[in-house]
């Protein structure tokens, strides 16, 4: 299947999901589904760098929060700016930060990049905490409109629709990469960077492309967050949960294809929501961490990989 039919198929699935949601018209369902779809985007974004090229980004919260706080800034400057534009801006800001970090550290062994991204999360949090314009440590309030523009109904429906749209774009991009020269170049880097260079692969440039794409999608996924939570402070915007989920979901689902992050996000996200409602929210955050460790130790190919192997 080419990229265009694939994208159309995704749009149909997304439209069907949205239609079901409209018909049910339960606000809670939209709030819960938004989180799962957001994690599909985050997991896919992480996987473009981590799964395809093998470079582990731990700074998900930095990129995600950069998107979220870009929206806060824009909201304070131009409150009437449409949310899709804020998402694009958040994506650009996060992508540029990815480019800078990558440029400084991607020439070195992969672990140094990973360590730098870990530290990046702390430093971006420090910067935001010290920046009074966006509320500093106290946090910022964002007024969520009551009614959704264009489509009517509750505003959460609009947020969900935007995230669904972003998800379609992210998945289409990821799948297109897999089937393109870029995807083969990424795989060569993941397998053996020196041999990739010797085969003509411009490894630094490809790694930077992956980092920018990955960071950009994370930023875009974070941009609607202020409207979702309506109150954003550094400790919630930079919660380690986002990072653990975004890493755990692709690794649990399987990192070798676009389907992995989707399977991981739906399973883990759904399980977490179930535990949050039935047991407690403290246990629910533990789930992703435990599953992550169990899967990387026992089933490194993830669920998709397990099924592929069985089929062979």
């Amino acid at each position, binding site marked *: 299947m080419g990229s265009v039919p694939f994208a159309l198929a995704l749009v149909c699935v997304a439209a069907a999901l949205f239609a079901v949601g409209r018909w049910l018209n339960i606000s809670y369902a939209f709030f819960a589904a938004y989180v799962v779809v957001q994690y599909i985007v985050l997991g896919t974004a992480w996987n473009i760098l981590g799964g395809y090229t093998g470079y582990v980004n731990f700074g998900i919260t930095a990129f995600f929060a950069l998107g979220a706080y870009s929206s806060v800034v824009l909201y304070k400057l131009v409150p009437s700016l449409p949310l899709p534009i804020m998402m694009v801006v958040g994506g650009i800001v996060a992508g540029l930060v990815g480019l800078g970090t990558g440029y400084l550290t991607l020439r070195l062994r992969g672990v140094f990049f990973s*360590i730098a991204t870990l530290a990046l999360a702390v430093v971006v949090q420090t910067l935001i905490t010290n920046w009074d314009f966006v509320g500093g440590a106290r946090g910022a309030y964002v007024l969520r409109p009551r009614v959704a523009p264009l489509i009517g109904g509750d505003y959460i429906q609009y947020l969900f629709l935007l995230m669904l749209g972003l998800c379609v774009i992210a998945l289409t991009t990821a799948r297109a990469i897999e089937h393109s020269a870029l995807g083969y170049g990424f795989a060569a880097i993941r397998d053996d960077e020196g041999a990739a260079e010797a085969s003509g692969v411009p490894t630094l440039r490809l790694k930077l492309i992956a980092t920018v794409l990955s960071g950009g999608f994370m930023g875009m996924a974070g941009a609607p967050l202020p409207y979702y939570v309506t109150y954003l402070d550094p400790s919630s915007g930079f919660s380690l949960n986002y990072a653990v989920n975004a890493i755990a979901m692709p690794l649990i689902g399987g990192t070798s294809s676009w389907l992995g992050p989707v399977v991981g996000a739906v399973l883990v996200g759904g399980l977490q929501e179930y535990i949050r409602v039935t047991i407690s929210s403290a246990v629910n955050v533990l789930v992703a961490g435990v599953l992550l460790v169990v899967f990387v130790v026992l089933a490194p190919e993830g669920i998709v990989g397990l099924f592929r192997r069985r089929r062979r």
Partner: protein
Amino acid sequence: MDASLDLLLNAVISGLLLGGFYAAVSIGVAISFGMLDIVNIAHPGFILLGSYVAYFANTVLGMDPILAAVIALPAFYALGALVYQIYYIAFERRQDQSLGGLSFFFGLLFITEVGLVLIFGVDYRLVQARYIGPSLNLGWVELPLRLFVPFLVSMVMVVGLQLFLSRSFLGRAIEAVAQDQLALRLMAANPTRIKRVAFGLSFATAAIAGAILIIIQPVEPSIGREYIGRVFAICVLGGLGSFSGMVIAAVTLGVVESLTATFFGPSWAPAVSFGVLLVTLAVRPSGILGR
């Protein structure tokens, strides 16, 4: 004396003491990452585990936190050996250290943090001891014992480990593993066993580092994260695998952070290590003492 000079001097002194403490926090990573090439980013989480062990022993049993850490050493060593064994089977043997191994330790970091939250909650906890509070007054500088005792403990640990590595047979074997695994295998030693011992040791240092951390400041489960950037900045700046470089780097970072905190405000201090780390990686990835 000039007030700002006084401020500067005290900032430098407390930075030196803080840096000494950072050496204790970093030495575990200097062993695991620097010598064994295992990127144990969960180490700061295990340090917090050490802090809470000290907290528990102190509040429930009334024990001195440092004594509690010493008693906990064997348990930490055993836990470290276990973690290494899993790491070895799951990643090192399969040659999948980067993606799987890094994620494994990230998962452990998260589990430790959330586990501590579930048991102890998110409030700050602290310990009681005679040396928390009073200061040594040396004329125009004050040496708070709360910083000085951890500094001493840290130095004893660093020097002790350095002596162990350079003098004892097992220590030399560990250094040999760090240099060249093949040569060691030819000598009929088992590198996996030696790495397990070394990793156990690196893990055990977390017990001590945790105890002195909670002496220096009250802790809550998520502050471990702040130490990740710091610890790796120190190890990279010091040149991987070199203890003396690591101590110099730790003290340097301590002083720079302390000056930053004094003159720009404490909320900026965490950014220092990231700056140091990025600049080191970009300019001199082999560290200050590297070739």
